[in-house]
């Protein structure tokens, strides 16, 4: 085995020493981010940036071509009452809906992200999970959001989790891979850190908090742990990895706290949709309402903002 000092991202990291995250310290740092006061010009800039980072999402059993088509329409026309708005980063759907989304978004610079690997549970054979991935890729998905095998991780089978991620990464071809850790099932911040390192070493382009299907979904605490893991990985290997908190971020104010956290942890290079996404379904309308308020001085009724 080549034991050279050059850091090869695809080698499995040693998780046996365990990471050390102090939860009290994490909570305090998060509280500090939440006490930042973002006003006037910096608030408008932040709101626009948030919009550009949204992965507009529908992942329901009852999704249909009609529903997905309307969501894509929303992605393209967030709120025509405000001219010059940025568009969302992507639309996120199930593999069987990728084709519909691709067609609806034809000609627009909005990505199609697809969940895969037996989302959300990941409880299927590797063959099935790879097939799921291939369907999405063949249908034209630009990004794949996979889930890790939490059961295997909790059983300590880190090698298996690592190999699955690496294999799915291969199956993605040109598509970018987001690895969902499902932090709400991992139990401790130390495990979140460990899973983050595992995923990044296995080739993840993005690490993502949650499927959004269980509670708790994204929190500022797990996000901070993951951002710090990304920093450590960047310092070690020089490779940037993106981050996506998903689920539970429905208010603009909270999204802005996340941007403060991102800015002060990883700095300016990550402050773009290329490296940071919000997995959200109802966040956009609150952001739009806040933008209208900044522009006009008043809050409009929610009825003025389309629900697609």
């Amino acid at each position: 085995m080549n034991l050279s000092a050059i850091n090869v991202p695809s080698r499995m990291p040693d998780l046996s020493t365990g990471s050390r995250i102090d939860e009290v310290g994490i909570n305090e740092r998060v509280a500090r981010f939440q006490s930042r006061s973002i006003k006037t010009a910096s608030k408008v800039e932040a709101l626009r940036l948030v919009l550009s980072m949204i992965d507009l999402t529908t992942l329901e059993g009852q999704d249909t071509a009609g529903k997905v088509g309307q969501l894509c329409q929303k992605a393209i026309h967030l709120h025509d009452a405000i001219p010059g708005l940025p568009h969302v980063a992507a639309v996120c759907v199930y593999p069987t809906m990728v084709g519909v989304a691709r067609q609806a978004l034809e000609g627009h610079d909005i990505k199609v992200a697809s969940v895969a690997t037996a989302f959300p549970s990941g409880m299927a054979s590797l063959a099935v999970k790879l097939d799921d991935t291939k369907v999405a890729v063949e249908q034209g998905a630009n990004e794949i959001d996979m889930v890790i095998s939490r059961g295997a991780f909790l059983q300590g089978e880190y090698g298996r989790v690592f190999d699955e991620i690496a294999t799915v990464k291969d199956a993605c071809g040109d598509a970018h891979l987001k690895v969902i850790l499902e932090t709400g099932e991992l139990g401790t911040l130390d495990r979140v850190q460990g899973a983050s390192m595992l995923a990044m070493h296995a080739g993840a382009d993005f690490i993502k908090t949650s499927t959004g299907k269980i509670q708790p979904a994204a929190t500022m605490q797990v996000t901070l742990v993951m951002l710090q893991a990304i920093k450590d990985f960047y310092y070690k290997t020089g490779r940037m990895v993106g981050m996506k908190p998903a689920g539970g971020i429905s208010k603009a104010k909270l999204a802005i706290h996340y941007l403060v956290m991102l800015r002060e942890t990883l700095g300016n290079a990550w402050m773009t949709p290329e490296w940071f996404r919000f997995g959200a379904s109802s966040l956009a309308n609150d952001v739009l309402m806040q933008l209208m308020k900044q522009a006009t001085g008043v809050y409009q009724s929610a009825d003025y903002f389309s629900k697609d």
Partner: protein
Amino acid sequence: MAIPENKLAFEGGWQYSPAPESIDHINLKTKYDLYIGGEFVAPESGRYFDTVNPATEECIAKVADANEADVDKAVKAARKAYNGAWSKMKAAERGKYIFRIARIMQERAREFAAIESLDGGKPIRESRDIDIPLAAAHFFYYAGWADKLEYAFPGRKVKPLGVAGQVIPWNFPLLMASWKIAPALACGNTVVLKPAETTPLTAMKLAEAIADAGLPPGVVNIVTGAGQTGAAIVTHPGVQKVAFTGSTKVGRIIQKALAGTNKKYTLELGGKAANIVFADAAIDQAVEGIVNGIFFNQGHVCCAGSRLLVQESVADEVVQKLKDRMDTLIVGDPLDKNTDIGAINSPMQLEKIESYLEIGQQEGGVMHQSSCALPDKGYWCRPTIFTGVSQSNRVVQEEIFGPVLAIQTFRTLDEAVSKANNTPYGLSGGIWTDKGAKIFKMTQKIRAGVIWANTFNKFDPTSPFGGYKESGFGREGGLHGLDAYLNLEA
């Protein structure tokens, strides 16, 4: 971890717009007299001095300069109040007055916070979230002890001492006033207090609150002035108890002056605390603790973690992450809610800090500062670290009282203990490790009055605070804090 070529970019990009705390609501007079015998009276000398906003260098108000005659007046008023209403009052009634003062402080919290930042330079985020709430908490806490003193010292008879003369510093003006006044009153004493000359305003606002609380005249007297006023209070024969918080240098002078008298006294002096980070610490959270330890309140903290002792195997990683974090600290207008580091309290203090920056570099230390912008007017110092220094350096030995951290490495626990204790000071310390047994071992070996584990700068009225060695003696806060203000008989 290797030092990265890849750098994180914190300069430029999305910036936070100004978010100033409004000061329309605050009530400040242009001139403040002395609060003696329940009234605001002009100083005998007729002299007033300016108190200046260190962020703008503008004069905020004129404040009376008390001379010996004024101090004598105040001590006599305190003695009269003690003999009169206060010592005769039922303990529970005393408690009610203290509680009322606490309530008023809380109701006027916003105003107190804004004035504290204006007068002293600390960020509004700190005065609003830490100083003022803690100050009120001390009054709330000690209000409860007033009628329970027998339970504090079972089997002993408790009696107040009489008149307490108290001198406080400029780094936590209102908080230090409450640390002094609340326990003194709870134990049945009366008070003559002098705030620091650069930060008299919140003490004068406290005087107004005390007057509004209807506290019997003369129970609390607040006289403003500089060093000579403080000396007059401390040496006045009518004072039975002295409480001083300030520099070790002045503490020595006071101790000399009081030796041979029968005054009881407590001193809370300087520090040069070691913040110790082990290789098995939660590193990112430890870095946050280091930042909190030395940059909180611009480093104007007696218990500041001004020496970092980092285990050698993680030193590079810790220093790199510390530098990253320093790049995100905002130095600026104390009244801006996003300011992390405010103004240095006075030109004298800034000069002192800058001389140490010179000394540190001349001694061969490597100085690193963040590169943030600074306002044109006012007194400012960027967050600073020194590497390549050791216990022999003056910047490692002497208290700088500014946002300047001296960094050393260590290899073993015993070496960390040895370096941590290798100082005449002994006020506080911090230990960062994930190993519980190590925390207990370290806390037993480190000679300091307050030791934090995996945190720093945590205060609570129930928790006694004070030093070993030349950091002083006596404890403030908690049950221990009552001791200094009572005569205990069998």
